[in-house]
């Protein structure tokens, strides 16, 4: 039982990170019907930003850790906006395929430039926040990092829901995701809203990157590839374009993966996410909370 609960905790903390990344995918898809392949690499940049920024702030302190995270989020928000502006916006009118290929190109560019600048070797992520192990009843171990992961994810999720549901810009986001033309007709500046969405999603990815590195403190330029793909699966699982769905999908996938990893099928852990994706797309393409939209003939 303890084992089970321990796995549960581990699964939920991993799932929280997936949820944060998945949100970026789902928001961009919701607004542009486009899978931002490079999103996983913004996650990686976030982690590295945290790595390098941590030199300028006190280690093992709440204030320092928070500052690093916020700065990394801002940096990656800017990166996301720049990518959209330079690589995606010019192709918005063209075929969806062209943008997808460009996104793959951007992803490769980030990974390989990262390799060039940061070096291909694994780096040890510094301790941003003070680490304690909280021993819970029943012999469970909860690390303060995991607690932070839950806390930060929850805070960010609540913040996101607030922005999307209660602010003017959030309403504009939702309007654009329903109908581009109608949105611009009522005076919404689509370009700015799209930039904002990219910025928001990238900031969340950066947070995810730092939290992930707190849990698994070994970072390298290709660290985003697998978590990114898995987070994408999570977004589809929850219903792509659906924000609560992405969170739900992320948590579920984190749990599934952790339990598989602890079982005798652990060598297939990575393949599980893909198998899940294929199954979802065949049997329930709308995901758990989404709506499937048919093509108009």
């Amino acid at each position, binding site marked *: 039982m303890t084992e089970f609960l321990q796995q549960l905790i581990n699964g939920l903390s991993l799932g929280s990170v997936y949820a944060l990344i998945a949100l970026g995918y789902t928001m961009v898809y919701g607004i542009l019907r486009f899978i931002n392949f490079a999103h996983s690499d913004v996650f990686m940049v976030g982690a590295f930003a945290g790595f390098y920024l941590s030199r300028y702030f006190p280690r093992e302190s709440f204030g320092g850790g928070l500052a690093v995270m916020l700065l990394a989020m801002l940096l990656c928000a800017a990166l996301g906006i720049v990518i959209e502006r330079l690589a995606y916006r010019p192709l918005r009118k063209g075929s969806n395929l062209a943008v997808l290929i460009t996104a793959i190109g951007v992803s490769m560019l980030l990974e390989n430039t990262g390799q060039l600048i940061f070096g291909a070797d694994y780096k040890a992520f510094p301790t941003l926040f003070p680490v304690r192990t909280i021993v819970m009843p029943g012999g469970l171990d909860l690390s303060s990092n995991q607690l932070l992961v839950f806390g930060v994810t929850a805070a960010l999720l609540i913040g996101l829901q607030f922005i999307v549901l209660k602010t003017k810009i959030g309403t504009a986001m939702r309007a654009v995701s329903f109908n581009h033309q109608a949105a611009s007709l009522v005076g919404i500046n689509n370009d700015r809203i799209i930039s904002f969405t990219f910025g928001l999603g990238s900031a969340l990815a950066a947070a995810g990157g730092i939290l992930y590195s707190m849990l698994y403190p070994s970072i390298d330029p290709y660290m985003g590839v697998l978590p990114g793909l898995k987070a994408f699966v999570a977004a589809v699982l929850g219903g792509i374009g659906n924000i609560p769905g992405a969170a739900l999908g992320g948590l579920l996938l984190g749990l599934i993966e952790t339990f598989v990893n602890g079982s005798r099928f652990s*060598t297939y852990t*990575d393949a599980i996410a893909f198998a899940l994706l294929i199954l979802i797309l065949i049997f329930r393409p709308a995901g758990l909370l989404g709506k499937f939209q048919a093509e108009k003939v």
Partner: protein
Amino acid sequence: MHRVKTIFAGRPKTLLLAALAGTFVLWLCSSQINPYYLDVLTKIGINVTLAVSLNLINGYTGQFSLGHAGFMAVGAYTAAAITLFGGPKILPAESSHFFGVATGGLFFGALIVGGLAAALAGLLVGAPSLRLKGDYLAIVTLGFGEIIRVIFRNIDSLGGALGLNGIPPYTNIFWVFGVAVVCTYVVVTMVHSTYGRGFIAVRDDEVAAEAMGLNTTRYKIVAFVVGAFFAGMAGGLYGHYALSIDPKGFDFMRSIEIVVMVILGGMGNTGGVIAAAVLLTLLPEWLRRFDQYRMIFYSLLLIGLMLARPQGLFTWKRKPVLQA
């Protein structure tokens, strides 16, 4: 289409035989050729087969597949398994007169079986994926490619994560170019027929194609299966050239490298794709000093192509047939 029509005006089989004969002659002279050039030619031949076969799926039929390396892996492992494990049982002694012929026959058989295994994989991948469009299809094929890789990583009898070594060096210039020539012949003749126009129709507008009586699912599956078959043969050729294969060599990056060739050449332009495959095989050789920048170059190439010239480098804008 017009130019191809003139070339193929009734004589494609003759061309095929001539090309194969030329390949045979090339092989006979291969001992005269600088081994480094031979090496590069081999790489070119394998890449041409990969690119032309992917072009059938991505270019002509418009199914954006990102898992081609997975089919290559299936072919490579299957062919290697046959020659490594079956060879000692079937082949006569090395001193025997028939050794050369028997080895050739074994290799040919292994390549074919590898291709068929890959074709089966193509069917398994294609069938469920086909109702998906664009982005989703791309991700799912990528997923399948990764699943195939993980499966091979878990088969210990084929080397597992460490890979399979000691593959006999059966690949030579005849096999490589022979397969490339046959692959090109198959793809081009298939597409340039009334039946084959259907592939392009499916790519251009699936709904309209269905309305004109085309079974679009069948077309897509045929494209996947044929494309996968040749990718599998290319994989078998690669395995017996590199002499050792491992799952990491057939990852998503490998698939992307082939995709870049198809895009650079112009989707659905076989001649252009062949040119692109040659160029992108030679480029790393010429720029060997800058090898660390190779992937950065590829990524900038991809982005640049999409922004500036999405029709590829080798597709020339034909003058409008109708003047104003």
